[in-house]
């Protein structure tokens, strides 16, 4: 104690402060794919909030996630990795099925369009399958809407189910989908 404080005072006065960096916006096309060992983007993992690669780690406003999704689904494919961070951030902040589903959707696009290095592609596929599976396991009743008035509500469980199959994955947990007479898909689960 007696020596620590003076030492620290000296260190402080010697200017051992971190330099400030002015922020000029993040180029979303250059965001690196996350560490493949993490469970980022899979509920309940929230490590995305601590990731320095995440341009949204300080938060993401309401419409930004949709804007960036539009970019990814449109012509700005290079922004899809950033879109992943955006939706994963939103998922960590607000764990609902919609955020989990579109995290999976972005990952699927990354895989299908080969938007990351070949080394990371298997991870993108596996992560997408896990994200879909998380929709089934944690948010099986979740739904989303196309418009703000939500007159075209659609359920995300069946979509996640088919997403796994489309990617060649295996649905875990006894989930299956049935169609009613109107052709509407319903997510069901067999008794364990």
């Amino acid at each position: 104690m007696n020596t620590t404080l003076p030492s620290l005072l000296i260190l402080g006065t010697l200017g051992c402060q971190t330099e400030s960096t002015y922020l000029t916006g993040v180029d979303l096309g250059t965001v690196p794919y996350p560490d493949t060992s993490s469970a980022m983007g899979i509920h309940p993992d929230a490590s995305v909030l601590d990731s320095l690669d995440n341009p949204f780690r300080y938060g993401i406003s309401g419409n930004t996630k949709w804007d960036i999704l539009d970019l990814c689904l449109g012509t700005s494919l290079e922004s899809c990795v950033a879109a992943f961070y955006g939706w994963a951030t939103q998922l960590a902040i607000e764990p609902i099925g919609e955020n989990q589903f579109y995290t999976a959707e972005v990952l699927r696009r990354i895989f299908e369009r080969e938007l990351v290095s070949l080394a990371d592609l298997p991870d993108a596929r596996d992560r997408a399958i896990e994200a879909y599976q998380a929709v089934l396991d944690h948010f099986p009743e979740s739904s989303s809407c196309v418009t703000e008035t939500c007159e075209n509500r659609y359920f995300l469980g069946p979509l996640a189910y088919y997403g796994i199959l489309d990617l060649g994955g295996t649905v875990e947990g006894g989930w299956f989908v049935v169609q009613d007479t109107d052709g509407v898909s319903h997510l069901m689960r067999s008794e364990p």
Partner: protein
Amino acid sequence: MKWCLVSMSPKATQTACFGSAPVGFRRLALPGLAWTSALWLAAGPLALAQELEIESPSASEEKAAPAAPAAAEETASKAPAIRETEPNPAEDSRTAYIREDNDGYQLIFNGEPYFIEGMNWGYMPIGENYSYDFWGKSDAFIERVLHRDMGLLRRMNVNSIRQYAVIPPHWVTWIFENYGISTMINPLFGRYGIDIDGSWVPNVDYSDPAIREAIRADTMEAIETYKDVKGVLLWLLGNENNYGLHWTSFEIEALPDASAKDDARARHLYSLVGEVTEAIHAADPNHPVAFCNGDLQYLHLIAEHASQIDILASNVYRGRSARDLYQRVRDELGKPILLSEFGADAYDAARGREDAVVQGSYLHDQWRELYEQAYGKGGAGTSLGGYTFQWADGWWKYLQEENLDVHDNNASWPNGGYVEDYVEGQNNMNEEWFGICAKTPPDSTGFYELQCRPAYYVLQKAHELDATDPNLTVDDIQAHFSTFASDEFDSLYAASRSVADLEEMKKAFLAGGWLDLSTFTSTHGNADGEGKDAYQLDHMESFYGQFAFQPSEDLRAEVEINVLGNVPTNRIDPVFYESRGAKINTVNEDGETVSLANLERVRLYGSSVEWTGERANIFGYFRRGHYHWGDEGDFFGLYKEAHYGESPDTYNADVPIGVEVEGKGPYSGLKLAFGPQVYWGANPTVFVKGQRQLGSWALAAVHQEDLASPSLGVADGSGAANTTGNSVPEQMTRKTTLHGRWQRSGLSVDLGGIFAGSNKIGQSYLGMREAQGSASYGGSGFDVFESAIGWKDTLGAKGRLSLQQGPWALLAEGAYQGLVADGGEDNQLFHTGWSLAGSARGNHTHGRLGFAINAGNVQIAPNVLYQKPLEGALSRIPGSLNPTTGKYFAEVFARDVISDPFAVLDNRETWGAELLIAVDPTPGTWMWQWDNPYREDAPYSFFLDLVYRHQPTQRDSMVAMLENGALFSFGEAPEAADHWDVRARLIRVWSSESRGMLFATVGQTQAHVPDARLLIRSSIEGTAQLKNWMASAAVHLADFGPYDYHRDFDLTYPLQLKGSVYRMLKRPKPNERVSRWGLTASFRTLDENSDYFELYDGDNAPYQLEIGTHLQVGL
């Protein structure tokens, strides 16, 4: 090696073992037999006593005998003729021996006739048994016990005690030298088993040569240990060994009947007694040898095989009289007798109650007979005295290993000699009730208190007799014993017992209670708004029981329990302590609505532990307040005050909870505090404080180390019941402060430094500046930068100068605290009750200057403050995506104390000014003391406080709590605004029984939500107390509701009225709950800014009304 024994009891049937090794022995040459000398009788005692440096007990404490003591010369002239032998001068050197003549037998001890007025003494706390090792305790403890017990024994004229051969020799001497009480040493002679080559043989066969040799060796080892020990009176071999003859052998089994078999076994016992007695005489000619027989069983065999003994000792339980015992011993054995045990129990087995009077009456008669049968009294002349059984109750004796804390009243054996409680076919001898004294449970050191039964006083009177006085006659004895009876001492015992019982009751008692029976009639309806259109009545029953435990004077614990009856669901303020038990409707798996009642009907309301030690005091608290350390060197207020009034009740918060340790003696100045939440919102943490005086400086250091975060899981909502938005646990931290105070004649200077938040070094944070050029962050007009916490940000310093000179007082203060150099809160008041003060939080610098000018009863105290954060608050900038450049400008939120290493809150930029005017004719009852409204004694006292805060910039975001307890940040703060506040208080004291208080506020404030309004709210609260009546009223205009979330979310009511009238049992002290009954009423109007307004949407002039009736009984 195990050594076993049974209690010295009337009927020893159970063996008990303890680990004490027998001592070794040496065989010595045989000396001559002991006998007496008339010449020595006349002149020897004094010379011998001087030679041996023995202080005669009777010399230091004269006894009051009914007959005048005779002079030594007279005694010599009246001494009877020696019957058998001529005097032998060599005998004079013996410590103790038996003198025999025609008048009987006398024990001579240290040259003087010695009548044994003995006691079977031992020390055994309740809850212990035979394994208790009293002599293994510390010398200090043993001395404490001996001083008490030997003092009592000495005062009752006891002159000898019986002890097994385990008492350390130096204590024998200590007892003798300090209290003149001799000790009869009692080797057990294989009574409860013997060790043979390392194996314990519990059933002793006295015919077995190996066992006989082992017993001899064991006994002689004891003789060698004690024979030269000052204070030893005589040897007592065994303890009713004739009751333990149970072995079988071919020799025994060949005998024709049980009697012959018993005799055969007994012959082996007594022949061994004779042999060992001879060996003892050879080794130690200075002490006579007695054998402890059970009554007079096998007396003929003793005479035949153990005639070497000097004394027959016997445990005798024959009732009031031993009848022919004394004469038979003379006639059939030709030896004196001492009663090694006798007495009576103090429990009436027939009636199932204690009867200490009868016990005393038995001892009265038994001792009278002992005196009557003593030397020269015309009787058998064989009585040498006896050892009363026993000193204190033995709570362990029944079952010996079970129910040790129970004073068992099961009688163990029948005895028709004790006629008062004898019933044919039933036991009447209660082993655990033979004590001359009762005892209390021990304290933490193992020490217990004694309550002397009537028997104590009977013996005290009985032993006033000097049986060795040759002039004492049987008539004298009978006359003396006729002067007192046991029953006349019963009141003494009853008083002593009552005191002890009261002391016991202090160890666990009902310390307080509060019963609340209330009804509430309201327009609120339930939480869903049902019933809001009609008056609903509900009721509440709530009981608080406060129990205290005080196992010793230095340790006290207190717990308070709340028990619920019905919990009303119609209250307009639905969150209160009892509401935890309100009925909840939920939906089960089948989709059915289920009502959950009976939730948490019983809850620990609070508790505390206070332990006063020699080196430290310990204070443990759970929902009990504690003070800050600001006056003891905690200059930056790390250890916050934790007196919250009713707030923790409202939120069912288990705060504060922790332990304080305060050093004493060599550790004075040291303090330690730790706990899960030592103040509301604290993380699990530990505080250490050291304080020293160095010259004219008082120096102190405080360190705080958070151990975990967040506190009690509030971040995930699981701690919902433990916090509010105003007590949010912040990030884990580590803080160290140094403080020095210099004082002289009204001037004090405080200097301090803080080093805090070093665990946050490296954490990144955002800052912003107004953009200097055309480009800005996302077009916001601000440049945003990212930086990280460094060492410099952990440091801070503060200085304060306080001066009091006559009517003038001054306070000047300046502080610089780095971004994360957070203090706690400053609870200290200087000179007056200023409310404008600098922040204790980091990330700011401030300067403050205040004056207080006293003129008569009036004080005028201006105070100014300048404060500015080092790094300003963040304005919220919405995130934006530039589709053209593909650049994303992440959203910028205002900081908060959970997500960011620091924030701008009460450390916001402030230019403040305050004018405080106070009128207090009696400053002895200081106006700013927390309990002043209760204690103020001036007819009028008054203050008016005007405060203006110019706040040109925003603060950062507050944190609020959702209904499920999850914490969240608003992400931005309301617009910057200046605030003014006016506070005023008037106390009017009409008499000591009547007073009134008025407290008024009006001022500006803002809620925590980003779009909060700038409110002007006002309130007036008044209380009048007229003798036992108390009336209160409060008016609030445009004010927040009662809960923190009202302030968080900007929920106000246009008008709030509250009133109450109570009739009280007495005038309540602060925080005291007194018995009372009365009425309460709450009324408030609602608008679109009000909580629950949606329930009344569409109503014309919506309002809520609640009327309560209360009957509350407090203890």
